[in-house]
C-alpha cells in the first residue's frame, strides 16, 4: 500500500464520518416534525408500529428511533395518547395530535420551509464573495 492509497483510505473514512454526523443531526432535527405531520394527516389515532411501518420505505433510520420521539412529544403535550387493548397481543398505545401539537406543527413547517429555501439557495448559487476569491 503506497502513501496515496493510505491518503484516499483516510479521507474516505473522514468523509463517511462527516456524512454520518450530518445525517444524524438532520434526522434528530426533523423526526419530530415528520412524526407530528403523519399524526396530523392521519384520520384516526395511530400506534407506534403503524407509524414505524408507514416510514419503512422512506426513512433510512431504524424503526425503533421513533418511539422515544413519540414518548417525548406526548410528555410535552404535543400528542395525546390512549392505551387500548389489542386482539393479538399486549395493549397498544394510540397517539393523536393535540391542539398544541397542531399549532406547533404549523410553526415548525414554516421554519422548515424557510430553512429549506435558504439551504437550497445557498447550495445552488455561489456566494457573491466566492467570485472574488482567487
Amino acid at each position: 500500500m503506497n502513501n496515496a492509497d493510505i491518503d484516499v483510505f483516510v479521507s474516505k473514512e473522514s468523509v463517511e464520518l462527516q456524512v454520518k454526523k450530518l445525517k444524524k443531526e438532520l434526522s434528530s432535527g426533523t423526526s419530530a416534525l415528520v412524526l407530528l405531520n403523519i399524526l396530523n394527516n392521519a384520520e384516526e389515532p395511530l400506534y407506534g408500529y403503524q407509524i414505524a411501518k408507514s416510514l419503512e420505505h422512506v426513512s433510512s433510520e431504524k424503526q425503533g428511533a421513533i418511539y422515544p420521539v413519540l414518548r417525548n412529544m406526548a410528555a410535552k403535550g404535543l400528542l395525546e395518547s390512549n392505551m387500548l387493548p389489542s386482539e393479538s397481543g399486549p395493549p397498544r398505545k394510540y397517539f393523536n395530535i393535540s391542539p398544541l401539537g397542531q399549532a406547533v406543527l404549523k410553526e415548525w413547517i414554516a421554519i422548515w420551509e424557510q430553512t429549506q429555501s435558504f439551504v437550497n439557495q445557498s447550495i445552488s448559487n455561489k456566494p457573491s464573495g466566492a467570485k472574488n476569491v482567487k
Partner: protein
Amino acid sequence: MSNSKTEQIIQAYLSELAQALSQHDKALIQDALFDSENHLHEALNDLENPDKSINLIIKNYGSAENIAQYYLELESTENFAMCGKNLPSQEANTQHFYSILKNVQAYRGLVFSLLSFPLGILYFAWTIFAGITSVVTSVFVVGTPLLVLYLKSMQYFSLFEGRLIEVLLGERMPRRLSNVTTQSKQSFKQMIIAVVQQRRIWTSVIYMALKLPIGVMVFITNVVPSFFAIAFMFTPIIDPIMHAINPSVNLDLTIYWLPLTVPVGIIGFIGTLHLTKWLTGLHVRFAKYMLVHLPN
C-alpha cells in the same frame, strides 16, 4: 422457527437492551423495554409483514446498542424541563435555611403529602379487601381469574402512583404499563403463571398496602404542622374563626400575640418544608424501588 425459540431471541434482545441502559434510570429502561417488546411482537403478529424472521425484524428495529442510544440522547438533551427530570441545581450546595420558601419542589411535596392520606385509604382498601377476596376465592378454580385481575389492577395503580410522583415530585417514573410478556397463543394457565411470577406486581401490592401508614405519617409530620404554622402566621383571622366554630376553646390569640406568633409560624413553616422535602425524597426512593420493574 418455533415460537419458544423466537421468544428466547426476543428476551435475549431485551436483556441486551436492559444491559446497554443498565447505568441509567430504571424508569427509562422500563419504557425502552416496553416499546421494543411491543414492536417486536406487533411485527411478528402482523399478517401483512412478509418478513417473519425475528432476526430481520430486530435488524429493522435497530440493534440494542442503537436503540439505547436513541433513548439516552433524547432523555439527556430534551427531556429535562418538560418531563419532570430535574437539572441539578447549581444553588443546591449554597442554599440556606430560608431559601426553601422559594423551592417549588417542597410545596409540591406538601401537596403530595396531603394527597397521600386519602390515596393511602383507597389503595389500602383495594389491596386488602380485593386482595383477600381474590386470594380466598382463588382456592377454587373459578376464583383464579379474579386473582389475575386483581394482580393486573396493581399495574394500573402503580402506574397512577408513578405518574403522580413524576408530576408532583419530579422523579422520572414509568410512563407506560409494565409489560407482562404474554403471547396470544399462550394457554390460560401459562398466562396466570406469567402474571404471578412478576416480582414487581408483588412489590406493588406491598407498596399499596404500606401507602396508608406512610400517608398517615406524612400527613401528621408534614401537613398538620404546616397547617398550624400558617394558622400561627394569621392569628388575627384564624382566632375569630376558631372561636366561631368552637366557642369553648380556651385559647385566646389576640392581635397582641402577633409579634410572637408570626415568627413562630414562619419558622415552623420553613422547618416543615425542610422536613417535607426530606421525607418526600425518601418516599421517592422507596416508590422507585417498589414500583419500577427491574429487568431480569
